[in-house]
């Protein structure tokens, strides 16, 4: 936690801040950064997970059998925090099905499978926006959202969301620190395409309203610093800052502190202190989307470690199976004992090499047992406190460890578990080889699960109460109806008030009225006028019988 002066590419020195802790690691970057990136070959099939980012999975817009063109939108963001997905090349959609995805769980998730046709025919792309400076930021954000751009540094947060901070921003930070060992994709991007990054900066400045841009690069990448410094010389809003190599200075909050001496509050965002931080790769992708109308369909990825024959970087299509990349890097040497996606500190092991590269995939690492020795089983904590010295966030890793181990999910939060960036510095320095970060990850997901359950329980309680209320209301209504009916029956029939008698009276009245009306017209009601001959005969027979009977009566 101290300020110091550090020599800069301009020849002068600059004030920089030093965060607490951190570790010096052998960077092993020379393994893969000595040759320029190669364009990866078109693989036999592409596997595109619908969820490659933080937030909600994309919604597929194609179905099996559809033909797609390169750059065609095939997945649409389902909500605000979600990202679009594009076909990386032209071909045919063979299926939309579950396939193992790059995730620490090794689980399968819905993916769009594309069989390339090798024609590389582009879909119709939106028009470039060279005049972005005069356009509405919302329109440019919409373009970035359309392009499916997520943070390419590894976290894969949708960029359009991050570029809508809703607070005044004064400083844009571009992250070119690339502090994790082995990874060199940002290094080679900065060396090979500094102009693409610099094209992205004015767009980002326009969107955020920031006045200046700081590009932080660790000093183990002198060529990258030189390239960006030369390219940015004309623009006084941009400053390329050379920072000392210290893991994890590429962490968002750490880099902001190193460059500005400002701390992002706990549970807060950089926007809370007027800053926005993006990876250099994201800036280049944004330039491609806005100035060239191109969606994010490929990225630079480092394939390295003693387990591959020719380590290097590749410009690979999103969805390329890992096995294809390793084959192009000379194939397996047989000495690697693991396949890690990401760096040695924060990456996770992949279970097989059929898993595709996703947007956040910056590195494929195949370390040999010498490079990443198995720490063996953990020993007891001796309370040496070296983890606390190494923690760049000023936490107490030992306390977190005890409470996470005891599954005390409340106490572990009291020690600010959620400020942990999982950088693994503590585990790196632990003399007892305790897998500390695993405990923190376990505790975090356990707490999220508990929160989810609590929300579900609350929801179920409300529904249950609503049901109870409804049942009670129905019961009350039924009772009320019954009471009414009973009361009606129980009422004694008052004299002259009997409904049945009243009805008879009313009918009699109606008949009398009808007769009176007919009488007024001079008619007598007769129903013997329109009789059929048969009926008439019957009537006459009846009359005769009656007369005969009357005759016999008188005779008697």
């Amino acid at each position, binding site marked *: 936690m101290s300020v110091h002066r550090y020599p800069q590419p301009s020849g002068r020195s600059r004030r920089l801040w030093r965060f607490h802790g951190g570790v010096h690691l052998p960077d092993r970057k020379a393994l893969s950064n000595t040759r320029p990136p190669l364009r990866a070959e078109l693989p036999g099939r592409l596997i595109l997970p619908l969820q490659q980012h933080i937030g909600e999975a994309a919604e597929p817009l194609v179905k099996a059998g559809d033909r797609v063109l390169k750059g065609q939108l095939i997945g649409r963001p389902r909500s605000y925090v979600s990202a679009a997905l594009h076909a990386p090349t032209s071909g045919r959609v063979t299926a939309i099905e579950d396939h193992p995805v790059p995730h620490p769980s090794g*689980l399968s998730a819905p993916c769009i499978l594309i069989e390339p046709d090798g024609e590389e025919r582009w879909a119709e792309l939106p028009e470039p926006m060279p005049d972005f400076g005069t356009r509405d930021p919302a329109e440019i954000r919409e373009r970035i959202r359309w392009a499916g751009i997520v943070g390419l540094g590894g976290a894969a947060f949708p960029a359009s969301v991050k570029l809508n901070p809703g607070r005044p921003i004064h400083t844009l930070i571009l992250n070119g620190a690339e502090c994790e060992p082995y990874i060199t994709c940002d290094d080679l991007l900065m060396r090979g395409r500094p102009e693409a990054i610099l094209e992205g900066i004015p767009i980002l400045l326009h969107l955020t309203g920031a006045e200046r841009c700081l590009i932080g690069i660790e000093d183990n990448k002198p060529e990258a610093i030189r390239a960006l410094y030369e390219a940015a010389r004309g623009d006084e809003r941009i400053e390329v800052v050379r920072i000392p190599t210290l893991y994890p200075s590429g962490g968002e909050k750490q880099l902001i502190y190193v460059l500005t001496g400002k701390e992002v509050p706990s549970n807060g965002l950089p926007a809370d202190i007027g800053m926005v931080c993006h990876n250099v790769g994201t800036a280049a992708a944004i330039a491609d989307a806005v100035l060239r109308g191109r969606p994010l369909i490929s990225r630079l990825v480092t394939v390295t470690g003693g387990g591959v024959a020719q380590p290097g970087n590749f410009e690979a299509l999103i969805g390329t199976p890992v096995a294809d990349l390793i084959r192009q890097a000379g194939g397996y040497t047989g000495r690697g004992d693991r396949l890690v996606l990401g760096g040695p500190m924060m990456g996770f092991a992949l279970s097989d090499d059929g898993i595709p590269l996703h947007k956040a995939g910056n590195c494929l690492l195949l370390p040999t047992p010498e490079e990443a020795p198995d720490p063996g089983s953990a020993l007891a904590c001796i309370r040496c406190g070296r983890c606390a010295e190494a923690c760049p966030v000023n936490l107490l890793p030992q306390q977190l460890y005890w409470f996470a181990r005891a599954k005390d999910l409340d106490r572990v939060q009291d020690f600010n578990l959620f400020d942990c960036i999982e950088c693994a510095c503590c585990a790196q320095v632990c003399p007892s080889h305790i897998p500390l970060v695993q405990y923190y990850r*376990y505790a975090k997901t356990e707490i999220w699960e508990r929160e989810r359950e609590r929300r579900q329980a609350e929801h*179920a309680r409300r529904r249950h109460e609503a049901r109870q209320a409804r049942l009670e209301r129905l019961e009350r209504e039924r009772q009320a109806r019954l009471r009414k009916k009973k009361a009606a029956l129980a009422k004694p029939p008052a004299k002259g008030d009997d409904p049945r008698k009243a009805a008879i009276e009313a009918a009699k009245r109606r008949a009398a009225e009808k007769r009176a009306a007919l009488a007024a017209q001079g008619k007598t009601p007769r129903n013997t006028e329109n009789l059929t001959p048969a009926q008439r005969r019957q009537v006459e027979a009846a009359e005769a019988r009656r007369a005969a009977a009357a005759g016999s009566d008188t005779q008697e």
Partner: protein
Amino acid sequence: MLIAITAMALLAGAFGLLLGYASVRFHVEGDPIADQIDALLPQTQCGQCGYPGCRPYAEAVAKGEAEINLCVPGGETVMVSLADLLGRDPVPVEGGEAKPKAVAWIDPQECIGCTLCLQACPVDAILGAAKQLHVVLREECTGCELCLPPCPVDCIHMHPIATDLKTWKWPYPGTRPVAASAPTQVAAN
């Protein structure tokens, strides 16, 4: 002597009135402890505790009529948090291990539309009408299994909820994740 007695009597009377007023003025509807207990329960409304729902069980616990270890779906977690809240000693949970979470599913081939399960569901998670096919709303189902016994044709089955990327949890260290311990294929190449 008389003065002392009078003073005590007056004081007692004054405080009595004050307390009496306070109990009326600051009267609390319901039982706040029962509310707190209810908030800890999983709200499956399954009745496995022997009470007709979570709220009645919470009230029984608040009154001291029920033990704190009767909630099967809540398991040890709920028992421990109840013990913490009430200052009681933890006791082993009765009814064995909590089952993996599941939701009900009605076999559309077999449902006869009798509406008996509709009436049994404590959270209105089943949709249907007489002689119409019934369906379970997955999102709302708490997995309480109360709809299983009334079904005359046994067409309701419990389907376990599969883990997806959003609900996946890092395992407790020591129990190694499947993904991280399978380098065999890579090494073979």
